[in-house]
């Protein structure tokens, strides 16, 4: 009975692999991947996540990551396997807050339903029953939804500090306790509605804030995922053993095969090859490495194999350290949020004192302890900072969403704040003002030559070859049947066509920088490339000027090339600037009290992007530059840069208004509470009105990016 096993779903152990594929853009891509990837033997299913640009593949353990990446390339997508790094499962906190919010919302709706009838005059047995029902709903809801606040308050108290969560927790607990007492003693008023409403609005603020921060963390996770997940480590006896990236240690010798992503930093010890360092430099041309060359985790070996002596591994690698720095930067709150924190530090003692004073005041004036306690609780509840907690995150989330729809991804709230303050903009040239994709001038080529050029160019990943391929394909050229094509990295591509040697080589030195040479037999022709300006550069610069922001070109490119463009655009330009000089210029501007915005794509703009007051990188920039920048603009247009500044300024205006509303609310509500005039009805109206006004005010930002 030796029947070959029929592969049933679940019959063989299936494993999940996540692939990062930044090229997924539309429904067509989803359809293509989900239809074609399972055709690979052993792949059970593929599911695309368009928001995260990831594919979850369920497959038999016999299918390697490499097979999957190759299959993805065959259907036209660059992909990389993603490790389950510590930051991948990062949105647990946001989810917990969302669940708590849902529960609080449920409780709020039902308790309000009951409270409204009590307020409109239900009495006697009906009121008793409604109070009991409210208690039955409120106690579990508060226990569940209040945990984020109770836990944080407990942590603060244990550390001997106080924060905004302490008065919230005390207020909610006291209000619930008193309401339970009232319910049991058949009292007239219960504050369950106030306590639950408080939790609901506060949780809404926290959930918005968490969603803003988890965006940044997803980016960091994507960066770390570029690191190789495992490495072949050479044993002393010469055999190679596969170990996971976490277990690689400095001093080990890694054997790197073609197509592998490096799992650790090190020096090449033996062998030679070429690596794709696009992750660090944005330069997709292969970089040659030989003995003694340093290589970094995340680079992909294009030629090999070679042996690498590990100098730093796991969290010590350059890429992991950058990710860590970014994580720290993400944690640092923006100035306005810090103001909110500072307010809360002042706020907690003030609220506690006010409540205590109200209690003693009423006791002294002869009211019973019961009435005094009710007043004190009313003060605690009504002063709780719902509107203040919503003021910043609501505005930032709405503005970031509006900018996202216009092609600008803002990293965090702090970025928006810094963008609102800039007063001078520095632009890199290549890839920023221009498209950064060389477009060939094909006028001088015959159709036969075009077909040969395409056949040669399409095998190479060199930027000029890619530009040439794209240009030729756009003209509808079909590749000629060139045989024995080989690429000698660094010098060119050669092949045989009709018995003639054909080649695509770099142009002779001294001529135009952007050109290549097509050789067909003994005939040589030069193909020139031009890097075109982005379509809306002029409009963008005009808009920035209208916003009171001067623009300047600062480029590492030759002086002539820069002055030609700066004359064309009518803004000052400096060429031949080294990365260090760029950094010095930015520091100089900052020393003069300016707030510079750096817009660069960064073969070497990384430090400048990080040093500027705010920074934007185009989507074509290196991963590292995109990580260093505050915002990334997607697509061919430059206009999102100006829109970002405009929207950021509006956001800060709205944030200030929101704080104003919150303060005004407290100024009105606190005297009422202290005077004992706040009934549960008034508390409910005042709290929800102030929160809704703040949210409504923030929603005006949905049109900010127009």
């Amino acid at each position, binding site marked *: 009975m030796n029947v070959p096993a029929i592969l049933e779903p679940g019959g063989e152990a299936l494993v999940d692999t996540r692939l990062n594929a930044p090229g997924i853009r539309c429904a067509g891509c989803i359809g293509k991947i989900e239809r074609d990837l399972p055709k690979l033997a052993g792949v059970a299913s593929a599911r695309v996540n*368009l*928001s995260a640009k990831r594919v979850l593949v369920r497959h038999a353990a016999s299918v390697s990551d490499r097979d999957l990446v190759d299959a993805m390339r065959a259907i036209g997508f660059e992909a990389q396997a993603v490790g389950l790094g510590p930051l991948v499962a990062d949105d647990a906190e946001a989810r917990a807050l969302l669940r708590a919010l*849902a529960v609080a919302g*449920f409780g709020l709706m*039902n308790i309000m339903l009951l409270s409204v009838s009590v307020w409109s005059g239900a009495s006697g047995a009906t009121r008793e*029953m409604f109070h009991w029902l409210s208690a039955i709903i409120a106690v579990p809801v508060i226990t569940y939804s209040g945990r984020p606040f109770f836990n944080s308050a407990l942590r603060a108290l244990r550390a001997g500090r106080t924060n905004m969560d302490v008065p919230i927790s005390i207020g909610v607990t006291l209000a619930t306790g008193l309401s339970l007492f009232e319910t049991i003693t058949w009292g007239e008023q219960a504050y369950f509605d106030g306590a639950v409403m408080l939790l609901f609005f506060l949780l809404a603020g926290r959930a918005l804030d968490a969603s803003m921060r988890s965006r940044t963390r997803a980016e960091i996770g994507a960066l770390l995922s570029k690191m190789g997940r495992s490495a072949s480590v050479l044993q002393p006896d010469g055999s190679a053993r596969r170990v996971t990236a976490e277990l690689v240690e400095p001093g080990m010798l890694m054997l790197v095969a073609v197509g592998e992503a490096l799992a650790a930093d090190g020096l090449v010890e033996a062998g030679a090859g070429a690596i794709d360092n696009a992750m660090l430099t944005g330069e997709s041309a292969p970089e040659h490495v030989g003995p003694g060359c340093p290589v970094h985790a995340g680079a992909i070996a294009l030629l090999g194999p070679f042996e690498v002596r590990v100098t730093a591994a796991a969290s010590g690698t350059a890429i992991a350290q950058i990710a860590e720095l970014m994580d720290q930067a993400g944690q640092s709150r923006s100035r306005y949020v810090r103001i909110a924190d500072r307010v809360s530090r002042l706020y907690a003692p003030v609220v506690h004192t006010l409540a205590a004073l109200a209690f003693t005041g009423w006791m002294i004036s002869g009211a019973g302890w019961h009435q005094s306690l009710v007043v004190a609780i009313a003060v605690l509840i009504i002063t709780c900072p719902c509107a203040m907690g919503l003021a910043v995150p609501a505005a930032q989330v709405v503005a970031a969403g509006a900018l996202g729809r216009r092609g600008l991804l803002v990293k965090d709230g702090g970025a928006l704040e810094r963008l609102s303050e800039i007063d001078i903009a520095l632009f890199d040239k290549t890839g920023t003002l221009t498209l950064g994709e060389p477009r060939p001038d094909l006028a001088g080529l015959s159709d036969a030559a075009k077909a040969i050029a395409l056949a040669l160019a399409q095998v190479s990943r060199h930027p000029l070859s890619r530009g040439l391929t794209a240009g030729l394909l756009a003209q509808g050229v079909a590749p000629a049947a060139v045989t024995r094509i080989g690429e000698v990295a660094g010098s060119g591509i050669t092949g045989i066509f009709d018995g003639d040697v054909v080649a695509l080589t770099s142009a002779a030195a001294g001529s135009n920088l952007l050109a290549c040479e097509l050789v067909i037999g003994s005939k040589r022709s030069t193909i020139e490339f031009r890097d075109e300006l982005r379509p809306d550069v002029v409009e963008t610069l005009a808009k920035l000027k209208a916003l009171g922001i001067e623009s300047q070109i600062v480029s590492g490119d030759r002086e002539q090339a820069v002055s030609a463009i700066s004359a064309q655009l009518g803004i000052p330009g400096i060429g031949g600037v080294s990365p260090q000089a760029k950094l010095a210029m930015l520091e100089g501007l900052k020393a003069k009290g300016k707030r510079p915005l750096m817009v660069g794509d960064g073969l070497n703009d990384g430090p400048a992007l990080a040093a500027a007051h705010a920074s934007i990188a185009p989507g074509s920039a290196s991963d590292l530059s995109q990580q260093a920048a505050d915002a990334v603009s997607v697509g061919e247009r430059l206009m999102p840069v100006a829109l970002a500044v405009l929207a950021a300024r509006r956001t800060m205006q709205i944030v200030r208004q929101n704080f104003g509303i919150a303060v005004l609310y407290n100024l009105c509500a606190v005297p009422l509470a202290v005077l004992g005039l706040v009934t549960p009805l008034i508390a409910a109206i005042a709290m929800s009105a102030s929160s809704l006004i703040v949210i409504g005010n923030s929603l005006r930002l949905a049109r900010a990016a127009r």
Partner: protein
Amino acid sequence: MSGLTYLIPIALGMGLVGLAAFFWAMRTGQYDDMEGSASRILIDEEDDL
């Protein structure tokens, strides 16, 4: 008054169903890929047949 004895449980029950549906939707990942869900309706699956 007697109406309340069944109206209130109905109201609460409907709320609980909604809450349970939200929890279920979150656990099964229906909020993980909002953009993808919006695009998926455009996929023409006829050619699979």
